[in-house]
């Protein structure tokens, strides 16, 4: 019964999306009928309430393990821990698409309830665009990916959730990432709305900024968490693989980062109007490209639940329709957008333009590298693109980007003098140059990219706190703190990446129980290997004792797990976090001679990568709170930065 109710709610929500779109259009055509446009807000809220209720129905079905529902039978199992029963609801194609539209509808409702800053007609047009977006994805769900489909005969028990996904981090990874992905739809809808009503200006940018910032924070957290998950769960010791699925989340983040900075220019200085609108469209387009890549089955990965060509074509068609529609509207209307305020070539605006250009180049490089294998496959050519392509191409531009990041906050808006800027940047630049020389002297064998990366990280660390220099810290606005912390986070993450790439130590050995080996500053002894039993798996657990020099020994317990439903083997790495890095141990196979394979890594400062990611997100959050706070105090909005 619950499944039928859920399906019914979903159809109703889809119906309301139609109503929302039509009311919006009618309201815009007949400005003399305020009741038409006025009805759009409550409809958007109602639509969200319905689809949230439908999503709750699905979660309920998973909790009670209703095996007569096809999705539950295919992805759940009655003796799974409760957390994974709930997260199983979105750990599959249909459920995750339902989560997608749920977040989309919630974002629409959020605009409807909270947004009071933009012109009324722009708001109506924005909600109309959001309704049209939702409609396409409702159609996708209801016509090709119905999550509530029943089975004729219920099986004894379900097939279980992919063990790789049975991880507490993964329970929260999809929702976080989706809030980021789909939250970007608000920027898209605002851009469409502002184009429709010819209202591209600072007011629209100020209204859009908190949404972009919120979605960007979620994306940052999602990417950081996803990277850490891949690091400890896959047992390969790497933190970024340039896997198409990772790129699918990185591309919207790059576009959103660019948008975040250009929207600030538009809000503060009324420049970069057309560019900001374009980026809003691009950012959500990248979210859709990501969804398409991940969900259509063109990629094979733990994320590609559905290998169904019909679904792939449906998603592709939706994506082309929305992106094409928005670009067409952009082409038609951009001529009517007036030129914004001017700025000098040496100014903060110019630095932010530079930031946007570098981000665009990285985005282009990543996009081409990600799509090329798929396109080549269409022509019968099998190609894979990996780190040898991405690292130098994207990495070198990223270093330039970080240098621009240091310069930007040290420049004045509108016009600045080259000499003054150089004087303000002198200390960080000198530090960076000293680091550049010092590192090469101390570690002559270091690779080019890690070498430059570490020097730039040191330059950026000093440069990102420079805006606080000689300032009254108590009177420094919260959003400035946010910027400083986020920029410092970039430096910290970059330092982690560079130090780990340059100085990690790896050992691959076969040892008997009792044997000692060493990796980096640690000596490691395999004490024993024991069989153990978990809730829905059995495992061989290695007991590994490690000690650093003469320090106290500590125990690591890597496992080779075997899950029963579905039958899968996974390797659980054991990671010991020290102040200056992590010791990472993977238990391999037992050879015919009885020796065990052990793979050991000493990864110095690797934790800085995710610490930096968290700092970027925290900085974003401070910035968001600071902006909203200031706007509450002065209704005209914070015009200075």
């Amino acid at each position, binding site marked *: 019964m619950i499944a039928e109710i859920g399906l019914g709610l979903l159809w109703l929500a889809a119906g309301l999306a139609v109503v929302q779109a039509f009311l919006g259009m009618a309201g815009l055509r007949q400005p003399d009928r305020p009741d038409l446009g006025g009805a759009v807000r409550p409809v958007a809220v109602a639509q969200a309430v319905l689809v949230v209720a439908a999503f709750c129905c699905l979660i309920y079905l998973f909790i009670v393990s209703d095996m007569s529902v096809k999705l539950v039978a295919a992805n759940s199992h009655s003796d799974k821990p409760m957390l994974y029963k709930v997260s199983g609801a979105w750990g599959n194609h249909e459920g995750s698409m339902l989560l997608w539209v749920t977040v989309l509808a919630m974002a629409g409702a959020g605009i409807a309830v909270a947004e009071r800053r933009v012109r009324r007609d722009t708001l109506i047009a924005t909600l109309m665009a959001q309704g049209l977006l939702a409609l396409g994805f409702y159609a996708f769900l209801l016509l090709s990916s119905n999550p509530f489909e029943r089975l004729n005969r219920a099986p004894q028990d379900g097939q279980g959730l992919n063990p790789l996904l049975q991880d507490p981090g993964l329970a929260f990874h999809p929702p976080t990432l989706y809030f980021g992905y789909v939250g970007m739809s608000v920027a898209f809808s605002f851009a469409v709305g502002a184009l429709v009503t010819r209202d591209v200006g600072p007011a629209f940018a100020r209204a859009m900024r908190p949404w972009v910032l919120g979605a960007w924070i979620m994306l940052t957290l999602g990417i950081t968490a996803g990277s850490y998950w891949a690091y400890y769960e896959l047992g390969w010791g790497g933190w970024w693989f340039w896997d198409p699925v990772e790129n699918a989340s990185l591309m919207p983040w790059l576009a959103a980062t660019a948008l975040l900075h250009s929207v600030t220019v538009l809000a503060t200085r009324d420049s*970069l109007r*057309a*560019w900001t609108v374009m980026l809003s469209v691009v950012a959500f387009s990248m979210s859709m490209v990501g969804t398409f890549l991940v969900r259509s089955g063109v990629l*094979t990965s733990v994320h590609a639940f559905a290998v169904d060509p019909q679904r792939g074509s449906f998603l592709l068609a939706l994506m082309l329709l929305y992106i094409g529609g928005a670009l067409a509207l952009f082409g038609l209307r951009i001529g009517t957008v007036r*030129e914004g305020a*001017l*700025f*000098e070539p040496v100014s903060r605006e110019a630095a932010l*333009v530079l930031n946007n*250009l*570098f981000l*665009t*180049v*990285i*985005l*282009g*490089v990543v996009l*081409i*590298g990600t799509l*090329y294998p798929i396109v080549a*496959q269409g022509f019968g*050519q*099998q*190609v*894979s*693109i*990996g780190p*040898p*392509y991405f690292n*130098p*191409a994207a990495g070198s*531009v990223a270093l330039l980007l970080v240098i621009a990041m240091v310069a930007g906050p040290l420049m004045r808006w509108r016009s600045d003098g080259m000499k003054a800027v150089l004087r303000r940047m002198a200390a960080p630049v000198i530090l960076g140059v000293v680091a550049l020389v010092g590192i090469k002297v101390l570690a002559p064998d270091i690779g080019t990219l890690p070498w430059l990366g570490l020097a730039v990280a040191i330059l950026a660390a000093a440069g990102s706190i420079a805006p606080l220099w000689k300032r009254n810290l108590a009177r420094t606005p919260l959003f400035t703190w946010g910027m400083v912390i986020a920029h410092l986070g970039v430096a910290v993450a970059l330092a982690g990446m560079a130090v780990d790439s340059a100085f990690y130590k790896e050992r*691959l*050995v*076969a040892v008997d129980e009792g044997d000692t080996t060493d990796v980096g500053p640690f000596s490691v002894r395999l004490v024993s290997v024991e069989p153990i039993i978990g809730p829905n798996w059995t495992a061989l657990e290695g007991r590994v004792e490690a000690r650093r020099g003469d320090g106290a020994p500590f125990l690591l317990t890597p496992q*080779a797990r075997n899950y029963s439903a*579905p*039958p*899968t*083997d996974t*390797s659980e790495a054991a990671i010991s976090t020290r102040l200056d890095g992590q010791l990472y141990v*993977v238990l*391999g*196979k037992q*050879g*015919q*001679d009885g*020796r065990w*394979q052990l*793979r050991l890594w000493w990864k110095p400062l690797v934790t800085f990568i995710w610490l930096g990611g968290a700092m970027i997100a925290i900085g974003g959050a401070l910035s968001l709170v600071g902006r909203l706070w200031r706007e509450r105090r002065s209704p005209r909005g914070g015009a200075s930065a």
Partner: protein
Amino acid sequence: MKAKNQRLILALLALAAVIGAGLLAVSGLKQEAAFFYAPGDVAENGLPLGKAVRLGGMVADKSIRHDPDGVTIHFVVEDGKAKVPVTFKGIAPDLFKEKSGVVAEGEFHPDGTFVANNLLAKHDERYMPPELAGKMHKTDTLKP
């Protein structure tokens, strides 16, 4: 600066960035794209030396040998047309076994050996690397 000029300059900059990204990507792709080979392709067209490639096929029956160091293995990948000897140092995936599909990432050596730095095995019963599925259909060694 005149209004018209600034807009034009910004538009040109954006265009230059996009073209720059394209050029950077194309030059990178030329050098670094790892093409997929089956043993038959190698026998036909010669060894692709000096670049990262992927080699896919079936692990030949009774071909897996272990080195005394306990971490290096040797095996033969075949596709019904030809065979390629492969060396791999590392922890082989759990589903890596004889008479089963495998994709090896690495480089060819001039003596015809493939030195793999990563192995992708058939992941579970429902999964097969798409390149492998495609090639396998062509050579008719495996049913879908």
